[in-house]
């Protein structure tokens, strides 16, 4: 459905840098009225930044964004007022308020400070009717509605504010399968009303159902833009993914040892009956979209978060699931996804951060041995190529990549039986990335079984000996290295059917 309307929103040469990191490079495209534009790209491709720019939450470093030919205002509030609304992945409603109050949140009609009830109800009902919720009682507490209905109510909230441009960020990520079609139907209806819609998703199949046009981002650059008819899934996937990543992570053949970890039927928050194994010296990748349960599975296996059922054995000996201390005692160590939040004590020195939790080498009878600690810290600094001035420097002064090396070093120095690296290269530059993976290869070569996941699927495929593909908390496939095929894996991860006979676990 193409319309002759001129472009409503137009982005020209939009660039954005955070410090020295450029996340968007001169991106330009237009959003037309009566058109659904699909925006795709891997995590870190720049989609979120682009959305933040469109919402007015952040300003581009260069380039222009215009609405009806006029510059887009620079505050979220003003952007909403001119008719551009962003609907985020997570619900932003207030559960204890009624449907009516939520739909009119911050937008009640009032005269002299007194709410005009009848007018308000009329407007809310009108907005809700456009998203197919016209039949729901306005006074229902919104918490009693389904997630899908609440999502639609969020859209209605934007419509009441007379939005002409809607940005939908992963709108179906929290929805059960059967509700996805309902949402897509609503989106089609709004497009036919003439709204310009930017639809951002990982689910490629949805795009082929709903989008009129696709814009593809990779590493902050626009690498593809064209009407839907020009795209098919393989082309799209090839456009999304960079091809030259293999070289950055030289995978080496390793002699794998005995099976170290066996986990069976793990049920945990966000994990539904996962069974995995890992052998000594093996690097096992967990691949999945955001929210597929990669982090959750790692946290469940390593005792960091509670496990409701399932068994875990290490070297044949059962470990009590959900007990962090039991897991650490058996040599299961977890390096968290967010190093600043969970991995490091930023107020401490590099030296301190290297020894937290394991004082065997640097203390005697509970007393620290400062000289031994300093010697050991500088040895580790060298071994792990951490760029530091002194081990007694605050760890917060290091760059992100070097901070991550401290986390990796602390974990590796404890010679774990099984190490879990949750997105170890998040937010670090390419150089530091290969440095971090070099450490992980070394650790595996010393006989540790390693689990690794990343928001960058290519990266995992480059380093792993074997991968498990996760979708919606379940393991949907297990593939050895000689059967790694990006397109196939991405297809599986986005909930697609198992085509080429991947091993289903």
């Amino acid at each position: 459905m193409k319309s002759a309307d001129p472009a409503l929103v137009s982005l020209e040469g939009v660039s954005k840098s955070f410090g020295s990191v450029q996340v968007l490079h001169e991106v330009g495209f237009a959003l037309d009225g009566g058109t659904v534009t699909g925006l795709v790209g891997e995590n870190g491709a720049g989609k979120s930044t682009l959305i933040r720019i469109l919402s007015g939450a952040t300003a581009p470093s260069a380039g222009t964004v215009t609405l009806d030919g006029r510059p887009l205002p620079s505050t979220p509030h003003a952007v909403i007022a001119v008719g551009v609304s962003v609907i985020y992945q997570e619900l932003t409603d207030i559960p204890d308020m009624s449907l009516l109050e939520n739909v009119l949140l911050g937008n009640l009609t009032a005269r002299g400070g007194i709410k005009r009830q009848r007018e308000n109800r009329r407007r809310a009902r009108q907005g809700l009717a456009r998203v197919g919720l016209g039949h729901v009682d306005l006074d229902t507490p919104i918490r009693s509605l389904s997630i899908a209905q609440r999502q639609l109510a969020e859209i209605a909230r934007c419509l009441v504010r007379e939005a002409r441009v809607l940005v939908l960020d992963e709108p179906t990520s929290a929805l059960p399968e059967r509700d996805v079609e309902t949402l897509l139907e609503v989106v089609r209806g709004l497009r036919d009303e003439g709204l310009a819609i930017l639809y951002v998703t990982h689910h490629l199949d949805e795009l082929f159902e709903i989008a009129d046009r696709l814009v593809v981002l990779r590493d902050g650059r626009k690498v593809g833009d064209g009407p839907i008819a020009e795209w098919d899934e393989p082309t799209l996937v090839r456009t999304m993914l960079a091809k030259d990543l293999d070289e950055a992570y030289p995978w080496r053949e390793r002699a794998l040892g005995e099976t170290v970890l066996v986990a069976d039927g793990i049920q945990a928050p966000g994990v539904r009956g996962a069974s995995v194994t890992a052998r000594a010296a093996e690097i096992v990748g967990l691949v999945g979209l955001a929210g597929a349960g990669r982090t959750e599975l790692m946290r469940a296996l390593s005792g960091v978060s509670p496990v409701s059922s399932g068994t875990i054995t290490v070297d044949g000996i059962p470990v009590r699931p959900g007990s962090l201390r039991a897991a650490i005692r058996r040599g299961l160590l977890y390096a968290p996804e967010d190093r600043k939040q969970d991995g490091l004590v930023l107020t401490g020195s590099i030296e301190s951060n290297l020894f937290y939790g394991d004082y065997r080498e640097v203390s005697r009878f509970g007393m620290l041995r400062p000289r031994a600690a300093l010697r050991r810290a500088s040895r580790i600094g060298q071994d792990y190529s951490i760029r530091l001035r002194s081990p007694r420097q605050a760890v917060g002064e290091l760059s992100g990549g070097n901070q991550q090396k401290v986390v990796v070093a602390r974990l590796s120095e404890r010679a774990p039986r099984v190490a879990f690296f949750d997105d170890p290269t998040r937010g670090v530059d390419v150089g530091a990335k290969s440095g971090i993976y070099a450490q992980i290869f070394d650790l595996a070569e010393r006989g540790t079984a390693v689990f690794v996941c990343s928001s960058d699927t290519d990266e995992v495929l480059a380093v792993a000996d074997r991968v498990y593909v996760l979708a919606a908390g379940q393991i949907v496939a297990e593939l050895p290295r000689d059967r790694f095929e990006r397109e196939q894996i991405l297809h599986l991860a986005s909930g697609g059917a198992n085509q080429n006979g991947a091993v289903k676990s």
Partner: protein
Amino acid sequence: MSQSPVTAPSFGSQAATVGRRMVNSNIAPIIVALVIVSVALSFLTPNFLTASNLTNIVTQSAVVGIAAIGATFVIITSGIDLAVGSNIALSGMLGAIAAKATDNGFVGILVVILVAAGVGAVNGASVAWLRLAPFIVTLAVMGMARGLTLQISQGQSVYSLPGELNWLGSSAILDVKTSALVTVVMFLIAHFVLSRTTFGHRVYAVGGNAEAARLAGINVRGVIFAAYVIAGITAGVAAIILLGRLDSATPNAANGTELQVIAAVVIGGTSLFGGKGSMLGTLIGVLLIGVINNGLTLLNVSSFWVQFVQGALIFLAVLLDSFNTRRLTRRTAS
């Protein structure tokens, strides 16, 4: 010191490292403040810079100082102990009653320490295992402990305590008050524990980032519990000194002491956000408060102003702490 991306770090001498650490921590400005205030006071009043007045300051600071030792542990874990004043009163009162009843000062000392440690354990268990907010828990315990003290004593003081119980707070060894000696010795021990033991290291880790500490395998709850018990025990020692100084237990003893204790710790550069602080800083904070109190008294300033000045000092210290923390976060955010 090389800034180039060599991996081999270069080290200064041990002394240089200690010096740099002192500058890096927040102690430097308060040392300067202590010196300036002391110099000013020695000009303003002839009585300030006399040997007897200076020992007097240390003796006067003993109760707050010893309680501040425990509070330093608690605040580094990013907690707070508001119950310290009423803990001093309760443990002192029960100890005095026990000592009178048995006519044995040692029994009294034992009871004081056990009760004080028990109150600390209640605080610690509530924070560590019941996951209650330290501020609220210790506020509640503060009320309960003071209420118990008043109830048990029926609002009456207990006088004429056995000699052993008074010894710590009232006698002297070679002209030096035992209370001053005890204060110094306890600071030395606490400094060692905090800076040179694995337990001290864990205290900083827990306060700096409890989740990171947990993931690294540190028993976070155990550390928090221990910190509050230590704070209880130091409150007990402070109570014994107070008993000796007054030769009595009064139900309103140490009323409001928590404010001075927290002030001393925070002025000494320990961050209310946790993870940062030192015993040396607390000692200097205690001395600064002691010197200011003493100076204001010597200058015949109304005691109402003394309280105001203490409040203002806390305000300044917290402001400084907040600035420092924000600077660190900004630097690490990039």
